[in-house]
C-alpha cells in the first residue's frame, strides 16, 4: 500500500470537484473493494475522499412509481427494504447471493456497481495485465480463464464484471445518477454504464474522472415472478460462474440478464423476446458470437441450463 492523504467529503459537489481536479484522487465508500486493491498496490490512489458523511443513505419513492436508492445505501439495507423485497424481488435475491453478511453491511450501492474484476492476474502485480497496466499484455489469454468472460470481451482483456446486484439492476432498467467536477448532473441508463473492453480495458465504465454517483433509480415495478439463480463452485461466498436474473410473467414473456459472462451484466433484449420458446432459443441468441476459451466454454451450456431451471420453476 502506498501512503495517501485522506479527507471526508462535506457535500457531493465539492467531493466531485476535488477528485476531478486532483490526479490520483479517488472516492471511498465502504472500502471493501478499494482497500483490498490498495493493499496489493493494484490501486495506488494518492488521496482519498471519504463519502460516508454524505446524505445518500435513503431509499425514497419517486413520482409515477419507482424508487431512488441513495449511493451510500448499504447492500444489507437495500436487500432488506420492504418495498424492494415486495416489488423488486430479483434485486434482493441478487444482493443476498453476493459476498457475506459482514461485507454487505459495509458495501455501498455505488461501490458495488464499481467493484473491479476478479481476474486472478489483475490481482498479481507481477503479471502482465492491460486492465491494471495498459499496454502490458493480458496474462489471462492463454492462461487460467475458467472464471472469465465468454462474450463482449476483446483481444486486450477477457475479464468479467463480477458482481450480482448490477445484474438485477440491468434487468430492472435502473438509471445511475451522477454529478461531475463542474457540478453538472446526468442520468445514465445502466445499459450504457459499463463499457465493453475493446482496446481500453483499463476503463470499466463511462464515468469521467471525479464523476460521483449520487443515486440509482428503479422504474416502476414489473410484476411477474422474480428469480436470481447464481451458479458457483461452493454454496456461498463465491463469485458466480454464471448467474441468471429473470422476471417471468404469467404468459411466459419476461426479461433475462446473465452475470459472470461478460464485461457487463449481459442482457440482449432481442433474445429475451424468445423466452416463450425456451431457454436454448434465448441463449442461442444472447450468446451469438461468443468467444469462450477452452477453460470457460462450459459457461455457454451452463447459462442455458441455469435459465432452463428458472423457467421450469416459473412454470411450477
Amino acid at each position, binding site marked *: 500500500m502506498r501512503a495517501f492523504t485522506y479527507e471526508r467529503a462535506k457535500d457531493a459537489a465539492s467531493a466531485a470537484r476535488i477528485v476531478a481536479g486532483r490526479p490520483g484522487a479517488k472516492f471511498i465508500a465502504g472500502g471493501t473493494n478499494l482497500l483490498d486493491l490498495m493493499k496489493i498496490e493494484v490501486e495506488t490512489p494518492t488521496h482519498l475522499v471519504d463519502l460516508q458523511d454524505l446524505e445518500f443513505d435513503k431509499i425514497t419513492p419517486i413520482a409515477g412509481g419507482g424508487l431512488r436508492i441513495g449511493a451510500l445505501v448499504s447492500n444489507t439495507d437495500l436487500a432488506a427494504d420492504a418495498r424492494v423485497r415486495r416489488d423488486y424481488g430479483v434485486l434482493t435475491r441478487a444482493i443476498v447471493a453476493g459476498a457475506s453478511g459482514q461485507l454487505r453491511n459495509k458495501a455501498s450501492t455505488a461501490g458495488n456497481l464499481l467493484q473491479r474484476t476478479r481476474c486472478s492476474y489483475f490481482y498479481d502485480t507481477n503479471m502482465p495485465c492491460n486492465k491494471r497496466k495498459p499496454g502490458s499484455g493480458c496474462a489471462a489469454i492463454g*492462461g487460467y480463464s475458467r472464471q472469465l468472460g465468454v462474450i463482449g470481451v476483446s483481444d486486450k482483456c477477457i475479464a468479467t464484471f463480477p458482481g450480482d446486484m448490477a445484474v438485477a439492476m440491468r434487468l430492472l432498467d435502473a438509471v445511475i445518477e451522477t454529478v461531475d467536477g463542474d457540478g453538472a448532473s446526468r442520468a445514465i441508463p445502466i445499459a450504457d454504464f459499463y463499457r465493453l473492453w475493446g482496446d481500453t480495458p483499463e476503463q470499466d465504465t463511462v464515468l469521467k474522472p471525479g464523476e460521483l454517483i449520487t443515486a440509482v433509480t428503479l422504474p416502476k415495478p414489473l410484476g411477474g415472478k422474480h428469480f436470481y439463480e447464481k451458479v458457483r463452485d461452493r454454496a456461498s461466498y463465491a463469485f458466480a460462474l454464471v448467474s441468471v436474473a429473470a422476471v417471468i410473467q404469467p404468459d411466459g414473456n419476461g426479461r433475462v440478464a446473465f452475470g459472470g459472462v461478460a464485461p457487463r451484466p449481459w442482457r440482449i433484449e432481442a433474445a429475451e423476446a424468445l423466452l416463450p420458446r425456451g431457454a436454448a432459443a434465448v441463449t442461442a441468441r444472447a450468446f451469438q458470437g461468443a468467444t469462450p476459451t477452452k477453460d470457460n466454454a462450459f459457461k455457454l451450456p451452463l447459462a442455458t441450463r441455469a435459465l432452463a431451471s428458472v423457467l421450469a420453476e416459473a412454470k411450477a
Partner: protein
Amino acid sequence: MKFDKPAGKTPIDQLKVVGRAHSRVEGQLKATGTARYAAEHHEVAPDVAHGYILGAAIGKGQIERIDTAAALAAPGVHAVVTHENSGPIGIGEFYAQRILAGPMVDHYHQAVAVVVADTFEQARAAAGLIRVTYGRDDEGQFDLAAQKPSTPIAPDEPFGGSTNQRIGDFEATFAKAPVKVDQTYTVPDQAHAMMEPHATIARWDGDQLTCWTAIQAMNWGCRDLGLIIGTPKEKIRLHSAFIGGGFGGKGTTQSDLALAAIAARVSGRAVKVVLHRPLMFNNTIHRPKTIQRIRLGAREDGRLVAIGHDSWSGNLRGGRTEPCTLPTQLMYAGENRLLRRYLATLDLAEGSAMRAPGEAPGMMALEIAMDELAEKLGMDPVELRIANDTQVDPSKPERRFSTRPFVQCLQEGAERFGWQSRIAKPGGRREGKWLVGMGMAGAIRGAPIMSAGARVRLGTDGRIIVETDMTDIGQGSYTIVAQTAAEMMGVPLDSVTAKLGDSTFPETPGSGGQAGAASATAAVYAACAKLRGMVAQRVGFNEADVAFADGRVMSGGRSVPLVDAAKEGEIVAEDAMEFGDLAKQYAQQTVGAHFAEVAVDAYTGAIRIRRMLAVCGAGRILNPTTARSQVIGGMTMGIGAALMEEMTVDTRFGFFVNHDLAGYEVPVHADVPHLEAHFINEVDATMSPLKAKGVGELGLSGVAPAIANAVYNATGVRVRSYPITLDKHLEKLPAVA
C-alpha cells in the same frame, strides 16, 4: 520408560478422566481472544520492527540486479536483507527449499528480500520500491503431465515406504484377471490454507535466539532453523503455545521463521514477519499434484488378485514424492502387487506434508477404482471391500495388524447410514430437480508412535503441571495431555495445567503424521509413573501397591492427600517413553469407512452434500469430543478436496495463479451439512499404555472418494480428476432444454 511388549492393565484403564468427553481446556482462552498466537506477543519486544517479504516475480531464473536504494531511503526503513547481505544460508533437514533466492530463483514467490521497518505499512510500501532485474537462463518446468513420460521411479525415501514394491507377478496375473479396472486419476496441487498465516517474532539476546512462532514440531523447528541460519540448535528457543491451524503447513521452519531470525540479526532489532496470504501458496509448501494409474484385477467373486498403483508427482530438486502408494501397501489383500512412485523435477514451490500425506490423495484414486470394480462385478461396494479385507501385511504375511476393525467399520457404517436404501444403478434417484446419490469408501492411515518426553510437577498446592514440547494446532493436545496426567495422578482435570509448545520442554514428535496424541500421552504416562514412585516414597508407601484416586494416595488400608507429598516442596519427575519394535512386529494402522449422500442439480450440475458419516477404528479414543472434532474437520477438508480445492498452475509463468482465499475455495458453512463421526470401541495394547492411536488424519483419508462415488451414483457420470466441479460433468447430464 521402555515400551516393548503389549500393555497389560494400566492406571489409564480406570477411565475416570481419559476416554471421557471434555471440551478443550484452553477453549475459553481461544473464545475470549486471550490465547495469544505468534504475532501477538507484543510484550516480548515492545520496539519490534516489522519484516516484509518480497517474493520473486518469476517462476525460475536468476536475479541479475537488485536495487534496494529507494527502499532503504524510504521512511522508517532499517534494513533490507537480500542474498547479498544475508550471510550464508543453509537448507533444513525436512524441507528441500531454499529460504532466500539469489542469485538463482527456484520458484515463484521465493523470498528475494526482507524489508525491515518501524511499521508493517512502511515495510510493505518500501518493498514495493525494490527493483529486481531477473534473467531467465533456465525457463523451468512446471507441467507434471508434460514431464510424466520421461519421469523416473523415485529413489527410496525416508517416508512413505518403498517407492517400488513388487510382490508376486502383477503383470501376468492382471493380464489374465477375469474382471479388470485400469484407470488414471488426478489430484491437483492443494493448499493447507489454515487460518493463521505463518508468523514469527525473532529476538536475539547476544548469541541466544528466541522466537515466538507457529511450528508443529518444535525440535525439528530448532534443528532446521539452526541449519538454515548457521546457529547451534542449543542457542535457539522456540515458543508455539498456540497455533491457528497447520495441517502440516507449519511442520518445521519456513521463511517467516528463518527470515525473521536473519533480519533480526542484520538489523539489530527484534523483527516480526507475517506471511501475507499469497505467499502461503507460492512461497511455502503444499500438497503436490499427482497423476495416478490404478489397475485392479479381480476374480468373479470379487477377490483381488492383482493390485497396481503408479503415482507421478513433481517437486523441487531434493524434494520427495507424494507417497500415494502408501495406503495401497496395506489396504486390501491380493497376492500380486506392483506399487511405484515416480518423481519429476518441477520448479514450483515445494511439495511436502499435508494432512495424511500419501493416504489422502492415494485413497482418492484407489477408492474410486474400487467403486468402478464393484460396478463391473455387479457387487455392492461395501461387500467388495469386506471380501478383500486383510488381517496381515500383504507384503509380510507373518506381520499381523495390531487391530484392524475394518469390516466392523464397514458394517456398522452401512447400518447406521441406511446404505441398503441406495439404488445401485446410477442416476436412479431423482427428487425434484435433484439427482441424489450415495457413495462410500474405505479409509486407512498409519498410526505411528515415536519416542517422546514430558516433565510433571506436583506443586505445594497439590496442582499438577505438565510440560512437554508437544504442540496444539487445534486438535486438542492440551486437553488429552491434561487428561492423561489427571488419570495417572488421581486428580480432577481442573487440577492439571498442561504447558506445551516450548522447545526447552522435553521433546516429542509434535503435531504431525497423527503421531502426536499417542506419543505425547505416552510420554506423560512415563513421567507420571515416575512421579507416582516419588510420591509413594515421600509419603512412605510401598511403590508397588500404591493407588492414586480422588486426590489421595492409597496403599493397603492407608490413605493420605496427594498434596502431602509436596509438603517439603515441589516434586518434579521427567521421563521419556521409548518404543521397542512392536511397530515392526505389528502393522499399526487406523482404519475407517466413509459414507456420503449428495444431491446434484440436474440443471446446473452443482453438487451439494446432504449428509456424511465416518466410522473410525483408532484404538482407545482419549476424548470423544476432541476426537469427533478432528474427524469432522477432516471430513470438511475432504469436501474441499472432492469438490473445490485446486491450486491452478500457470505453466507459462510457472506459479499457482489462484493464490488467495478468494481464488482457492475451501468449504464454507453452507457446504457442510450434518456430519456424523462414530468410533469403534476398541483398544490397541501394542501402541502404548494408553492403548491409543491418532485420529486426525484418518478423518480425511477416504472422504473425497466417498463423495466422488456418491456423485457418480447420482449422475452416472464418472469424473476421475479432482476436484469434481460442475463443468466436468455438466454436458453429460440428462438434457434439460
